């Protein structure tokens, strides 16, 4: 039986891009800069600090 074909280059490139995006997203989230970070409270139309 022959060996399985190697992983195509395009898969490796897209895989690296996805991993980088996940790391950036995770880092931003952990440092509080992602997902809105510290969202101020809004009450009756006035923005609270």
């Amino acid at each position: 039986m022959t060996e399985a074909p190697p992983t195509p280059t395009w898969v490796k490139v897209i895989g690296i891009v996805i991993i980088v995006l996940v790391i950036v997203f995770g880092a931003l989230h952990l440092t509080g800069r992602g997902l809105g970070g510290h969202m101020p409270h809004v009450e009756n139309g006035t923005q609270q600090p």
Partner: protein
Amino acid sequence: MTMTPSFRKLALTAHITTSVGWFGAVAAFLSLAIIGLIGQDELTVRACYLGMGIAARFVIVPLAIASLVTGLIQALGSKWGLFRHYWIVVKLVIAALATMVLLLHMQPINFLSHAASKAPLSATDYRDLRFQLVVNASTALAILLVAIVLAVYKPRGVTRYGWRKQQEERQGSKASSAQTE
């Protein structure tokens, strides 16, 4: 598990409609996010964030989930399989991650929509958050474009699992043809 030809066409139509619809809805969301960020007119800016909240809740999230589900049905019910070809695996990862990130971002989207419904937003209000939505929507659009390109071009490349299945099928067909001879 193989679908009948008519159900396969129905599933494919649903998958294309929801996937391309998702892309279009994110493009519209991005245009609103940009106008909301750089717009000078208070009413326009408020309208943008109100519209973004509604579009995200009632269009983008349902389309994202529908695209993911129809994609799974399409892959599992056809000869392509879910883990046989790299382009399908990559599309699955993209759709799953994009849906997850979208659901996580519903909080800031709803927040801005709520804030816009309560009072006018000045150019400096929630600047970081508004800029973040532009970046996120741009990234989502680029990623969804990659998924569409993969679906159209179907680049070659079978996974180890797909290759093993191909070998098994070839051996099975050889054995059955030998029996008939």
